[in-house]
């Protein structure tokens, strides 16, 4: 008698009692195995199986194996994959994060097809492999049939038929005789050593210990990255933080003048900056513009003789060179509130939030700031200015105020001028200039 116990003493752990688990018969070739399988099936055995090195045609019928349920599992997985893909694409692109791309609808079914197809196949493939393994009770590393000596030939050229002791028709002597009658090469007992299949006890603590030790470097790394520090951080991945490029207001020895920013080349003009209409684009009468040096229009400009330029002396335009209507006024109000009101205040009194904050900061510590409160727009000197000069102020700035030419287009600057005029009118109005209803309301308020 051959048993695994003698052959593989190392494999078998000290076990309580090895017991007979069944018989394994080896057959010479496929036809004799098929014949034996049919006879075993007809004898009414249920817990029996054939073991072959390659799929044998016709063995399913011979053994009475029913068709597998696997196709239905895979079909279910395919539907799950398709549904997941459609839901994913709908929820991300049509619902949560809408973004127009090449004019396509948010939920574009033709464009969704590739991913839907791929996920269906992916899910189904996992269903096919894992479903097959699950239905086959694999992985199963401990199997008593491995202890039968010639059984390792099953993966090379051995054809085996095994009947297990769990079968109700199994009988120690009769079954052995039955198998021998099937014309096998040999019949072996399958002895289950009943070895413990539990994992060794020390494995779990060891695994936890290794996990903790393995996490330490990661935790340290995370600490270095996340904790506040006074000195520059260690850059593990620089993330393009340091790039060989020129930033604004920085020096550079690449150019002769040492500047990183490049000045506009003389005689050039940006696209859209050219106006034939001088009064519109400069606020000056055309003849005057031709005569004067335009650098005199800049803030704090000096005459050649060192005296301060008197801007009021230039030939400014006195009428707004656009159609003055309510639309322009509304536009001016909007632009004024966006660009000017932060300093000048919504009414032009110079009480914008920026100004208030600057003044408040300067108050406690005199001498620290250089902020000058913006001039009230409806003061007489400003009211006396021609519209062209106000336009010039917006364009180039004055004193501390920067020019807004780069931010506000020409037409909008005129709209602001119009609105400033309206503010001036409002700011210097007398009671009798108001409509009668307003007069009455105000008088009622006073009383």
């Amino acid at each position, binding site marked *: 008698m051959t048993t695994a116990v003698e052959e593989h003493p190392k494999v078998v752990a000290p076990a309580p009692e090895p017991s007979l688990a069944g018989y394994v018969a080896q057959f010479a070739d496929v036809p004799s195995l098929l014949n034996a399988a049919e006879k075993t099936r007809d004898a009414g055995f249920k817990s029996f199986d054939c073991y072959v090195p390659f799929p044998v*045609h016709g063995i399913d019928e011979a053994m009475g194996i029913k068709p597998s349920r696997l196709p239905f599992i895979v*079909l279910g997985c395919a539907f799950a994959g398709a549904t997941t893909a459609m839901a994913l694409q709908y929820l991300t692109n049509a619902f949560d994060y809408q973004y127009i791309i*090449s*004019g*396509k609808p948010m939920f574009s079914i*033709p*464009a969704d*097809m590739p991913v839907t197809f791929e996920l269906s196949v992916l899910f189904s493939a996992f269903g096919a492999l894992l479903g097959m393994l699950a239905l086959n009770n694999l992985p199963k590393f401990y199997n008593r049939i491995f202890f039968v000596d010639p059984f390792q030939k099953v993966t090379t050229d051995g054809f085996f038929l095994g009947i297990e002791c769990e079968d109700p028709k199994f009988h120690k002597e009769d079954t052995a005789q039955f198998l021998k009658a099937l014309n096998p090469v040999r019949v072996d007992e399958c002895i289950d050593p009943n070895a413990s299949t539990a994992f060794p006890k020390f494995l779990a603590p060891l695994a936890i210990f290794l996990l903790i030790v393995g996490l330490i470097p990661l935790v340290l790394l995370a600490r270095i990255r996340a904790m506040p520090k006074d000195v520059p951080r260690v850059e593990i991945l620089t993330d393009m933080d340091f790039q060989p490029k020129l930033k604004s207001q920085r020096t550079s020895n690449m150019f002769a003048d040492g500047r990183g920013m490049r000045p506009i080349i003389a005689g050039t003009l940006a696209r859209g900056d050219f106006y034939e209409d001088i009064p519109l684009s400069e606020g000056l009468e055309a003849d005057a513009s031709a005569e004067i040096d335009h650098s005199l229009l800049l803030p704090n400009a000096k005459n050649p003789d060192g005296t301060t330029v008197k801007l009021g002396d230039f030939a400014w335009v006195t009428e707004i060179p656009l159609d003055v209507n309510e639309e322009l006024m509304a536009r001016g109000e909007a632009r004024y509130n966006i660009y000017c009101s932060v300093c000048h205040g919504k009414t032009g009194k110079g009480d914008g939030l920026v100004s208030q904050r600057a003044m408040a900061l300067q108050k406690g510590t005199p001498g620290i700031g250089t902020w000058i409160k913006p001039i009230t727009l409806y003061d007489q000197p400003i009211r006396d200015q021609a519209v062209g000069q106000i336009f010039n102020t917006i364009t180039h700035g004055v004193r501390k105020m920067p020019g807004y030419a780069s931010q506000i287009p020409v037409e909008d600057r005129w709209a602001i001028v119009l609105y400033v005029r309206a503010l001036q009118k409002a700011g210097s109005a007398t009671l009798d200039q108001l409509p009668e209803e307003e007069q009455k309301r105000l008088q009622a308020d006073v009383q």
Partner: protein
Amino acid sequence: MAHHGQTIPVENPGTLEQNVGQLGLFAMYAGAIGLLIAGLIAVTSNNWERFQFSYLHNLCFALSIALGALFFILIQHLTRAGWSTVVRRLAEMMTNGIVPLAVLFVPIVFLLLNGSDVLFLWNNKEIASTDPLLIHKQIYLNPMWFTIRAIVYFAFWILCSRYYLMTSAKQDKTGDPQLSLRMERYSAVSLILFALSITFASVDWIMSLDPRWFSTIIGVYYFANANVAFYATLAIVVHFANSKGMLNETVNAEHRHDIGKLLFGFNCFWAYIAFSQYLLYWYANIPEETVWYMRRQENGWEMVSLILIVGHFAIPFLGLMSRTVKRNPSQLFCWAVYLLVMCWIDLYWLIIPEVSPGSPAPGLIDLGCLVGIGGFFVFGTVKLSEQFTVLAVKDPRLQESLAFHNI
């Protein structure tokens, strides 16, 4: 794989004439009546345009079955296929249908040579010489060159299919395996010529109906459709043959299973090609390309497009997936008929919008042309195949085919 085991005896199932009797004659009468009715309606309703398009549509449809059969024969020889020997003769007979279709094509060429621009807008001299998209095409799209090409296509198809049928029939008598090798040897070159002929035929007869539109895949599209139509027809023919007690011993569930698989597979291939073309044009959204699809997405044609997506692909995809369906004679037959109808609708969708962009509704003219062309197609097929046995009785691979088992 070599089969060990005794030879399966084959009885000679007899010639087609012995099996089908008067089918050919009946088909001819049907064909004549069909075309006559369609013609009469066209005359009375003054709708010759529709008649011509419908005639072309049904001609292309019948042709697709015959060309699918020719491809089937060539590829079976090229790959030394064993399973298909029991049904290959049926395919060889189907290719005989190209002959009547060549005759039926003569009126189209005749009208074209006489300057008709009803079917082919490019034959309108004025448009062709002024439309900037057509001027340069005149050296390709002109009646004479078109006619020559059509003659070359038909000549090649007829010669090729006759060669394979006659050689195979010769083998019925001699059983010489060298003939199989010779057919195999010619099949590779024939396939190349087949690919070129079916491509340019579909460019000429389908794509040039809208001479401004173009797609590099049109040949493959028609080829895919032809394969679906052929396998559907083969399944139908096998079913009829079996129900008439013909080939009962030889064609069994295993062969039906394979025909079903190929039908299913080529139907998926058709969907793949159709989707590829649509997706690329839909995505790029270039007017000169999408105009062709726009015509098929408005005025009711969008319903036909949807029928194709759902009916031609989605439903048969799920329906034909099961092994049981493919092995069951009547279920496979139902699906084959269904898919053949879908193939007809597919060609309808390709051709008819060019004449009737306003409405997709088919009329009696279409039915008449279908019966007419189909009748003559069946008549020609049967008439020319009458003297041949319905089975390649001495093919060296017949035994393998008979003993064939799916995994």
